[in-house]
């Protein structure tokens, strides 16, 4: 591996899938926590159906699925404090800002886009 590592890269992880339809949400969160544990500056973005992942009072056991949503509480231990949710996606789904984690910032399309473009690498799940 090369020696001139650019350790100051910023990572954006975009979530676009609802939490329990497939493993995308869990695998995005796993990736975010690993990036955090390597002290990479990482932000989480929730867009489209991805906003369902942060809505409070969900019961995964009702549909026989392992609940990964409580793992979101680990984000703060890895200094992942930038968590952005698209306001328009909430509105389109008639969802209120009732979340199961703190630190969420609900943003307009314009600001959401601005924040996203501040990152060097974007992963989409």
């Amino acid at each position, binding site marked *: *591996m*090369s020696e001139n*590592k*650019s*350790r100051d*890269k910023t*990572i954006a992880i975009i979530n676009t899938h609802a939490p329990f339809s497939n*493993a*995308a949400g869990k*695998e995005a969160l*796993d*990736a975010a926590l*690993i*990036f955090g544990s*390597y002290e*990479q500056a990482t932000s989480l973005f929730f867009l489209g159906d991805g906003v369902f992942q942060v809505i409070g009072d969900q019961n995964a056991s009702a549909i026989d699925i392992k609940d990964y949503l409580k793992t979101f509480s680990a984000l703060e231990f890895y200094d992942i404090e930038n968590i952005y949710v698209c306001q328009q996606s909430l509105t389109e789904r008639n969802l209120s800002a009732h979340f199961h984690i703190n630190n969420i910032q609900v943003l307009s399309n314009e600001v959401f886009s601005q924040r996203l473009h501040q990152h060097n*690498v*974007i*992963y*989409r*799940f």
Partner: protein
Amino acid sequence: MQNRLALVVTTPPNSNLTTTAINLVKAALDSGVSIIGVFFYQDGVLNAAKYLSIPSDEFQTLAQWQQLNSEYNVPLYLCITAAEKRGLSDELNNHESSNIDSAFTVSGLGELVELTSNAERVVQL
């Protein structure tokens, strides 16, 4: 100064996006771009399935990855957590000890962090 490209494959071998990924690797090699690694995550881990047999008139994804690895030394990193979730393992208890093709290096999300950090450009498919 040589370009360093990292690729993240998240789609199964029968997906057209996987074919695109393979074509992208070949085009990069032809253009003198250095492929520092391909990371297989989500359903992309199924590309490493050793015993998957695809009809001969279909695109032979595994053979392509094997060739890229053996002839061009393209490193193929497999996320073992995502692989085990989908039935792939290098620690099976039956007569075969692994159902993962030997062209793939068993690794974890830490490798994704390394690749992301070392690459000048990251492409996710």
